[in-house]
């Protein structure tokens, strides 16, 4: 068994003299879907900025597959709440952007991106502009871009929160399937406790002021879970436990 694909040890981040997060350690194993849950102001987004290399922590280190990447962007791909597709680029160019930024030729980047459109349910949208796509489709395009930019690890910051309930349910199911197929390990932030229990293998619970780790929770049964999992006692027990921490 190899080590975790992504690991953070003893992360602390200070902004303007105020400690935002303190002594946070976590790990993500190959193929895992792990959720970071916490009250507002627990520094979840700051934590993700550190993990993605957008900002360097005052203390602690980040490792990608054992290699230290602290403060180095471009290795772990990061998807924010909004799809942030660039309105002036066609979908295929939006999706291929991480490859282009690494210096790949436009034609071959487009080709690589195009090859994955089917798997992400985006057939035929290559030459469209973002404004022509529905919210769900845009989110999938953003996920595909995230995947293309990744080395097997994706950070998602409230990826589904902008979608309506039905679209959300559908995209959850779809995401789990796709993730399985493309062997992506995911760490994601959510405010939605139900979503966290439904999707995650494990849940990290953060407390606030400053952000610190309260608990780590393993969710059983392992995925794929039965359709009615959300209606079981086990689900309710998890929810009760999480609420007691928050």
């Amino acid at each position, binding site marked *: 068994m190899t080590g975790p694909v992504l690991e953070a040890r003893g992360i602390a981040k200070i902004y303007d003299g105020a400690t935002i997060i303190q002594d946070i350690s976590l790990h993500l194993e190959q193929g895992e879907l792990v959720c970071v849950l916490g009250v507002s102001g627990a520094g979840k987004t700051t934590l993700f900025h550190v993990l993605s290399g957008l900002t360097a922590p005052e203390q602690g280190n980040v490792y990608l597959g054992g290699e230290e990447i602290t403060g180095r*962007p*471009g290795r*772990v791909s990061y998807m*924010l709440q909004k799809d*942030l597709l*660039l309105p002036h680029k066609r979908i295929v160019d939006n999706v291929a*952007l*991480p490859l282009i930024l*690494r210096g790949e030729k436009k034609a071959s980047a487009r080709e690589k991106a195009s090859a994955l459109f089917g798997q992400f349910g985006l057939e035929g949208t290559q030459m469209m*502009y973002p404004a022509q796509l529905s919210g769900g489709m845009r989110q999938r395009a953003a996920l595909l871009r995230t995947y293309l930019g990744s080395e097997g690890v994706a950070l998602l910051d409230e990826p589904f929160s902008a979608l309506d309930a039905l679209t959300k349910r559908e995209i959850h199911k779809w995401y789990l399937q796709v993730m399985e197929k493309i062997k992506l390990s995911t760490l994601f932030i959510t405010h939605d406790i139900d979503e966290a229990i439904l999707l995650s293998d494990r849940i990290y619970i953060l407390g606030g002021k400053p952000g610190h780790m309260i608990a780590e929770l393993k969710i059983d049964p392992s995925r794929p879970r039965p359709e009615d999992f959300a209606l079981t006692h086990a689900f309710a027990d998890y929810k009760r436990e999480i609420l007691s921490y928050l």
Partner: protein
Amino acid sequence: MKKSRSITSKLPGAAAIAGLLLVWHLVCTFGLVPQFMLPSPGQVLTALWEEFPLLLQHARITLAEAALGLGAGMAVAFVIATLMDRFSILYKALYPLLIITQTIPSVAIAPLLVLWMGFEMAPKITLVAITTFFPITIGLLDGYASADREAAQLLRSMGAGRAQIFWHLKLPSALSHFFAGLRVSVSYAVVGAVISEWLGGFEGLGVYMTRVKKAYAFDKMFAVIVFITAVSLLLMLCVALLRKVAMPWEKYEKLERKD
């Protein structure tokens, strides 16, 4: 359906113009203003028709000055705006200066430019460059600033450098503001060239204007005004077309907003 709506929406504008022409015509027919001072629309049209070849010849020079000045103004605007966006110290230093230079009326500096540069094209091109540079600079600055911060962060998380963020995000984000500035600037360019020709020169629509003024040829005065207006409108139309070609995604965004 859609087409008919766009026609009805243009109807009030057309009616207003027609109404104004009618009032003008009636004022002339009933002799409310002496004819030598205010020629009727028909007389203006006749003058325009008779002078058209001459006007075209003069327009060649004026348009050349306007185009060269606009090109220079655009180039300077692009360099300055990009540097100001990149270095905030430059932004703070130059912004007040930009606003101040803009409050100096171009008519006031035109004579100075003629004294410095003579009666050839140089002072005209310079004046046009000065007047067109400002709206484009402001347009670009606002445009760069309008780039989505989160999108910039996303690109940075993908490992993008400053130049890549500029090329993939900031420059395209500035396009709509740039075209808005350009739209204003093309008409400024023509007017700027004409004004600078008033003060001296050998050919150009402004030179033509001063000549017909001295001859008290009011119908020709009006004719050249109509001609300049038409040229400006035509140039603005060109900018609108250019914008459509340069920003093909815009039409979908407009559709989306309507829904």
